[in-house]
C-alpha cells in the first residue's frame, strides 16, 4: 500500500496521532532501559537453562532440553529448599507481622521519643546483611555467647545451643535473624497504613463505646487492607528469593539443612560450574515469584470484588 505524501503529512499534523506518538516516544527510553536490564537477562536465563555449560565461554554449550529442570525437581535439595522457604513464609506471618504491627502502633502512639524509637527499629534495615550475620553469629555462639549463657542461666543446660550448627535448628535460627532484620521495614508499611486511617473514625467509635480490641478488629485491620496485602506479597516473594542471610550465616549447611533456592543457584554456578542447571533454578525462581504475585493479586482483587 502506498501512502501518499499528503497522507503522511496529514497524519503528522493530526493532533491525536501526535499525542500518541509523544506518549510512545517518551516511554520508549524507559522501556528500552527496562528491556536491557530486566527483560534481556531474564530471557537469557531461560535460554541458558536448556543447555549444559561449565561457565567457560570457549567451551561448547550442549543442548539438553528440559534435563536441567527434571534434575532439579528430582534433587532432594529442591524439597529441602521448598520446605525451608515454607518455614520462611510462615515465620513472616508468625514473627515479622505481629512484631512489625506492634512496632508500628508504638511509633504511631503519643509516646515521647517515638522518633528515636522509629529510627532504632528501622536501623537493622540499613546494616549490611553480612554484618548482621556476623553479629548474630557471636550472639548465638554456643560457648559463652549471650543466648547460650541465657539458656544456661535459666537452667536449660541440656539444650543443644549450637543453633546455627544444628541440622534441625539452623533454619529456625535464620528466620529469627531475618525477622529481626526486616521487622523495621515492615513497621514502616504498617505505620503508613495506620496514618491513613482518619482519626474521626476512632473518635466516633469511642463515643459508641467501642473497646480497644474491637477498634483493632473492626476499624484498624479492615482499613489497613492494602498494607497487609503489600506485606503478604513482600513476605512471599522475599522468602522465595531469599539468599544473603542464609549464605552469610550457614551457607546452606550443615550439609544441606538450611539450603534455599538462592544458595542452590549460587553453589551450582560458582562452586559446581553447572551454569545451565543454575539457570534452570533461576528460571524457576522467576516463574515462582511471578506466579505467586499473580495468585496473590488475584485473591486480593477477588476479595475486593466480593
Amino acid at each position, binding site marked *: 500500500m502506498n501512502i501518499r505524501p499528503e497522507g503522511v503529512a496529514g497524519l503528522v499534523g493530526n493532533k491525536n496521532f501526535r499525542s500518541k506518538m509523544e506518549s510512545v516516544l517518551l516511554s520508549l527510553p524507559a522501556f528500552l532501559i527496562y528491556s536491557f536490564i530486566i527483560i534481556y537477562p531474564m530471557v537469557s536465563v531461560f535460554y541458558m537453562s536448556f543447555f549444559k555449560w*561449565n561457565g*567457560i565461554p570457549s567451551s561448547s554449550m550442549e543442548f539438553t532440553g528440559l534435563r536441567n529442570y527434571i534434575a532439579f525437581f528430582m534433587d532432594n535439595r529442591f524439597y529441602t529448599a521448598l520446605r525451608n522457604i515454607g518455614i520462611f513464609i510462615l515465620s513472616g506471618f508468625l514473627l515479622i507481622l505481629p512484631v512489625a504491627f506492634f512496632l508500628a502502633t508504638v511509633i504511631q502512639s503519643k509516646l515521647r521519643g517515638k522518633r528515636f524509637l522509629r529510627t532504632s527499629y528501622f536501623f537493622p534495615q540499613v546494616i549490611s546483611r553480612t554484618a548482621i550475620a556476623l553479629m548474630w553469629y557471636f550472639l548465638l555462639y554456643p560457648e559463652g555467647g549471650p543466648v547460650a549463657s541465657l539458656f544456661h542461666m535459666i537452667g536449660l543446660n541440656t539444650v543443644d545451643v549450637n543453633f546455627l*550448627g544444628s541440622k534441625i535448628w539452623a533454619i529456625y535460627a535464620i528466620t529469627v535473624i531475618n525477622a529481626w532484620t526486616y521487622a523495621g521495614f515492615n513497621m514502616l508499611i504498617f505505620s503508613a497504613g495506620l496514618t491513613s486511617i482518619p482519626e474521626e473514625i476512632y473518635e466516633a467509635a469511642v463515643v459508641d463505646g467501642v473497646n480497644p480490641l474491637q477498634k483493632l478488629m473492626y476499624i484498624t485491620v479492615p482499613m489497613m487492607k492494602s498494607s497487609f496485602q503489600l506485606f503478604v506479597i513482600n513476605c512471599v516473594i522475599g522468602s522465595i528469593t531469599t539468599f544473603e542471610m542464609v549464605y552469610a550465616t550457614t551457607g546452606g549447611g*550443615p*550439609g544441606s*539443612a538450611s539450603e534455599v533456592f538462592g544458595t542452590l543457584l549460587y553453589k551450582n554456578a560458582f562452586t559446581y*560450574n553447572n551454569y545451565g542447571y543454575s539457570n534452570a533454578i533461576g528460571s524457576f525462581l522467576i516463574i515462582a515469584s511471578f506466579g505467586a504475585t499473580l495468585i496473590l493479586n488475584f485473591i486480593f482483587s477477588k476479595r475486593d470484588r466480593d
Partner: protein
Amino acid sequence: MVKKRNAVGFLMAMAMVLSLFSGCSGNNSGAGGSSQASAGGQNQAGNEKVAVRILTRYSNPDNVREKYFIDRVAKFKSENPDIDLQDISVSDENSRDTKFKTSVASGNPIEVFNFLGYAANIDYVKNGVVADLDPLFKEDPEWTKNYKKSLFSPVDYSAYGIEGIYGIPTTPYGVCTFYNKAIFDKLGIQIPETWEQIEAAAPKLIEKGITPMAFGAKDNYRGGHFLTALSMKVYGADLKDRLISGEEKWNGKDTVSLISYMKKLYDEGVFGKNNLAYTADGELAKLESGEAAICFSGSWNIATINGFSNAKDIVCKGFPYFEAHQENKDMWMGGPDDFLAISSKPGDADYDATVKVLKYFSSQDYWQGLYEVQKGSGTYPVSFGEVIPADTLTNGFNEYYNSAVNMIGEIEQYDKMAALMDVVRTNMQTIFSGSKAQEIGDVIQGEVDNYLASNK
C-alpha cells in the same frame, strides 16, 4: 500556541530517544574500551599503564606469609610504574573461586591467578583459560632451576593428552599435627602419635575440661582434609585410586569405615563440642589458649604458631597413624597445592606485563625473601643455597615430612567432577550435626551417580 507547544513536546520526545540511542552507541565504545583496559590493559598510548590483575589467597596482613605477599605487591608497584598491578586477592577460598569463575564466565579472565591444578580443574586447561607456561620455562631456565620438579605434576596434564605445564607451584604442604606439650607434661601423658594412643589419652584430657583434638568444622575443608589424611594412614593411596576409578564407591565398605571412625572419635568426645561454631583459626586459638591439646593442621600454619605466646610449648609431628597399620605410617596427605598461573597468551596486549608479574611473584628472590621473613620456617617450592637454621616446629615437621614415602592431595582433587570437593567437604561436615556414616556416604555417592548419569 497550542500547536507550537505540541511541536516542542514532540521534538523533545524525539531528542530524548535519539540521545538514548547516541548514549548507547557512546557507551558501547566506552564499554569496549573499558573492557579492553580491564582485560589486561590495551596499551593504546605508549605511556599508558598496562593493567594486570592478580588473584591469590593472600589478603590477611595478620598472617606472616600473606603480609609478605602484600608487601611485595607494594614493592612491585613502586618498581614498575608502567604496570598497574591490581591486587584483588582474598583469603577466603570460596570468595576467591567466585571471583575467578565470574571473571572467566564473563569472558574477561583474571590475568594472574592462583590455580588449583589436578583433574578437577582440567576444563580450564582444555578450554584455553590457563596458558601453557612450558615455552616460558624453556625460554628462561634460570627462573625455575631451583624448583622441585616433582611439584609440577598436578599442572602437567599429559596423562589426559594435553601437552604443557599450566602453573608454577607456590605452596607445597603437608598435613601435620601440633601438640600443646605443656598440657601433656602437666598430666604426665606421653605425646600420642597413634590414634590408639589418642583414644587412650582422650578421657584424661576430657576429665580436665580439655578438648583432646580441636576440629573447626565450620570451615568445611577440615573434614575433607581429615578424611584424606586418615585414608592414607589406613589404605595408603590405594583407596584414593579405587575411588577415582570407581572401583570403590563413596558409600562402599572401606570409605564408610573411615567416616565411621571419624564419627566414633566425635562421639567419644575426642573433637570436643560445638565444632560447627568455629573455624580453622579457632583451632589454633584453642591450641594456644590450652583449651585443646592437639590440633591437626598443616605446614602452612607453622609461621603463625611460631608467633604464639607459648610457641615453645608446641611441638609438631606427623598426622597420627594406626598401630594396626604400621605399613602406612609414612603415607601423607600433602604435596603441591596452589599454583600461580596466567590467562594471557603470546600476542595479547598485556602478555609481557603479565609474564613480568608472574615471574616476580615466583622468582627465587621472592622465595628467598619469604624464607628470611619466616626465619626458615614452613615449606617452599624451591631449594635455597644458604640454609637458615630453622625453628623447632619446622625441624619437627621436616623430620616427619622427609620420611614420607607417598603423598597425595585431597582425594576429590583427582576426580574430574569439579563439584566433588564441595560435596564431600559439605557432607563430612554433617558428622558434627548428627549424620550417620552410611548416610554421608550415600549422599556423596548419589551426587557422583547424578554427575556420571548427566555426563554419559
